[in-house]
């Protein structure tokens, strides 16, 4: 019986696989695309790996390091292989996968899901108008341009002021499209400050905050969009509608865990929109782990990578009969939009890393852990928090002992 099956050959899946192989486990990686590396293969901009490798790499460079490592460790890799079913029973797990080589049934002792996230599309934000050619998600555009050398259009409107939107804007600008306009409903860019400077301001790319696309116009191909201003609550301001001619709309509307492909009835967290996990990223099904952007969308690949390393340790504990105690539930409190892990249950000595997403921007705050009665158990000072940056705290395990539930909030220092 194979030791561990990792589903997904992107950075998180590879990190988990490499981590486990280094511990001496027999690991198989199942990847649906024709090559390893996941979304990194199309991310030719730099900035990856500052935490993991201590240098800013491009996506392909980052993934190549992992792939090389994986190859040197002799991981079994199944490419072009799609996981159709997963069965998990008492002491029994099977992954049924389809590939051009046939239908494979991989018996395995543990499973690590690392299938990442998907892009939100126009339907999810109720984008109005027609549905002609010329509306794409940002990731599709990136792939089209970087891997196949084809530009999606000439006059571009980008919806969304997050990191993905900014990076794709710079990219299309450098590729020489005729015009770009970025619009987003927030008062300012939602992404990392370095991207605002390096992607948008440095190139003088026009942008309009507090503006959304109300509808797309065009029958065969996009002919333009109707823009409208919005107020602080993102409600359209009447009388501000304006036609803007373009032939392309790029949707950079954010990412959500790609849970549609989870083939097991694992418990989900409505806030992260990913599976609920414990401190070693094990889902509600024993021996089935979930890592990376599938759990919650991370801003840095380095953090996603980190979850995979933690999960690798968890898989080891699971396979060696590690013990669990009654779970301590972690729930988001004030100014915390979502967090993971959602429960702590293993017998272990190490601190518990908790990743959390602030709801609003604030300076000089404390991330506070409280018990059910609201008593403060501990706090972590943060110079500055903002929704665009995921925060991490390492909670000492002793702080959680003998509790059933704690909440974590962000309070003024």
């Amino acid at each position: 019986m194979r030791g561990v099956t990792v589903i997904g050959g992107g950075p998180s899946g590879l990190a988990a696989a490499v981590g486990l192989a280094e511990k001496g486990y027999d690991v198989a990686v199942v990847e649906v695309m024709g090559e390893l590396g996941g979304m990194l293969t199309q991310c030719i901009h730099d900035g990856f790996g500052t935490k993991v490798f201590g240098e800013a790499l491009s996506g392909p460079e980052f993934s190549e390091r992992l792939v090389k490592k994986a190859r040197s460790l002799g991981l079994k890799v199944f490419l072009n292989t799609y996981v159709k079913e997963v069965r998990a029973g008492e002491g029994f797990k099977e992954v049924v996968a389809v590939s051009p080589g046939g239908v494979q049934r991989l018996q395995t002792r543990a499973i690590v899901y690392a299938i990442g996230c998907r892009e939100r599309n126009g339907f999810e934000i109720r984008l109005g108008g027609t549905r002609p050619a010329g509306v794409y998600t940002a990731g599709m555009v990136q792939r089209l341009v970087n891997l196949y050398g084809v530009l999606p259009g000439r006059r571009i409107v980008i919806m969304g002021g997050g990191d993905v939107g900014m990076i794709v804007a710079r990219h299309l600008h450098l590729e020489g499209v005729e015009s770009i306009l970025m619009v987003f409903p927030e008062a300012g860019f939602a992404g990392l400050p370095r991207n605002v400077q390096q992607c948008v301001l440095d190139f003088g790319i026009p942008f309009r905050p507090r503006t959304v696309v109300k509808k797309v116009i065009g029958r065969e191909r996009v002919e333009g969009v109707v823009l409208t201003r919005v107020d602080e609550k993102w409600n359209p301001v009447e009388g501000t509608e304006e036609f803007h001619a373009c032939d392309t709309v790029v949707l950079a509307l954010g990412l959500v865990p790609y849970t549609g492909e989870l083939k097991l009835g694992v418990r989900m967290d409505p806030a992260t929109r990913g599976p609920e996990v414990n401190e070693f990223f094990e889902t509600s099904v024993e021996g089935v782990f979930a890592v990376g952007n599938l759990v919650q969308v991370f801003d840095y690949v380095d953090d996603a990578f980190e979850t995979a390393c933690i999960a690798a340790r968890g898989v080891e504990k699971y396979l060696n009969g590690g013990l669990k105690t009654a779970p301590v539930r972690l729930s988001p409190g004030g100014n915390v939009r979502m967090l993971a892990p959602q429960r702590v249950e293993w017998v272990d000595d190490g601190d518990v890393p908790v990743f959390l997403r602030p709801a609003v921007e604030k300076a000089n705050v404390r991330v506070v852990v409280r018990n059910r009665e609201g008593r403060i158990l501990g706090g972590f000072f943060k110079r500055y928090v903002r929704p665009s940056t995921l925060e991490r705290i390492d909670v000492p395990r002793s702080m959680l002992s003998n509790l059933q539930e704690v909440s974590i909030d962000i309070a003024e220092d």
Partner: protein
Amino acid sequence: MFTLDYRVASVLKKYPYNISFRVRDNIVFLQGEVDSHMEWVEIGLSIGRVRGVEGVVNKIRWRGAPGNEAREEWRRRVFEEKRNTVVGEYDVVIIGGGVVGAALARELSKYELKAALLEKSTDIAAGTTKANNGMIHAGVEPSRGTLKRMLNVRGNAMYGKLAEELGFRFNRVGSLWLITPRTLASYRKYLPGPLYNLVLKHVLPWVVKIKGLVNGVRNIRIIRGRRIFELEPFATRDAVAAVYIPSTGVVDPYEVAVALAENAEANGVEIHLETEAVGFIKDGGAVKGVVTNKGVFLCRYVVNSAGLYADEVAALAGSEEYTIHPRKGVLLVFHRDTGVFTRHCLAEIILPQDPYTKGGGINPTVHGNVLWGPTAVEVPDKDDTSVTREEIEHVLSKYSGIVPGFPRDRLIRYFAGVRAATFTEDFVIRPAKWVRNLLHVAGIQSPGLAASPAIAEYAVEKLREMGLGLKPKTGFNPRRRPMPTAAGMSLEELEGKIRMDPAWGRIVCTCEFVSEAEIVEAVRRGARTLDAVKRRTRAGMGECQGGFCTLEIALILSRETGVPLNMLLKEEGRLFNGHVRSEQP
């Protein structure tokens, strides 16, 4: 007795406009000017309802009406260019490749004759046919004396055999019309106290049932109490009674049209895509040839099944007998996993009924998705398939009472289709009044999909009456090999397929489990565009709506058709229309 002229004049008197009219062979031509598009519609409809009127040609102008000059100019130019280039000679030319044109083509392919189906778009079913809820109505709704009534019940009955022969999915799910306290809320004041419930529970169901029986719909049952929720566990507990109509079915409308066209083609009918009629070569009172952007199709008979454009085609041919007033319907698509919430075509009866929404409600599909809608909005533009946020909210609130626990957040897509309604609001299937060899098959709105097999038979009968000789073809093969799908196979079957062709094992659309082999097969069967592939394979119809697979499909399409990536079409527009790196922008 009053003449038709008198009746029309007395209706027009009600409107504060100076509208002139003339009547020729029971067709009313209206001229004048009004303020709004809605008034244009209203006047047309009120004339259409006048007894004895067989068609309304509404030439009234409304303020802000879009002109059609560019299109007309294009037609004139192409006509002059192509009038001397002959493509071929045919017994019958069908203009319009929607489900009706395709059904007609297949019906004609049973006989020894040469026929051609012309479709202006890049695929069959690319107009109204692709954008409806796929319902095969039982036939309870149509009123007495309409063609709709006659052909709906008949068409519905034909679907079982047709599905079996052509290998398309057809589920006779049945419909359940719920009667709730909201049903007669407008009449509450006339029905005091317990009378209201009595009428709801015991009178109204019978009224509906009898209407259905008179129309020829069989096995209608009235059910009350727990029985309703045994049939439909998630239906609103407000339902006091329900009318159950078991013969209602659902299909995938483009699958039906594509199957009909494929079978017609296999039996010898020529299918010409991207072929648009721009004019006619006439000789006396008859059409000699249909001029298109591809050249002239010489013909003995012409069928006008051009859907939304049937009025323009009729005018070009010289027998303008009706005007199409486009009526948009918005539909919401929910994720496949919501199928458990809806087993039947569900509707809540609300009276008085909006005369222009029929069949609106919550419908299962053959794929497990659930559709909500459609709406019915008169629009000035035949191509207006836009959907606004307000329309989405409207549909969500209008139908949420039917299945209160429905996971409305599983909405994955929305779209709109445009119905090709005439002002007489019935199918128009008859020989043209002023052209000897032209058959109109127009005004096909709901329940047109359900009726389409019967429409085809009826239309061919009309052609026979017009003098077309019909000799059955000995080699006619009624069967079509269905599109094989990985999603529909067991693992063992799939394994066998992969052994024959590894492309079966490469899953391109992970949301809907579609393999590369299916995309190749769709291309082999004639799909040339991304949307044509999507309609045949469902690739891109799942949760991510093509975010992951669009590019993969495009690459396969490009490889299989030899069309470069940047020249591929989505439907009619370029999928990617930017420059190619290293080439001059």
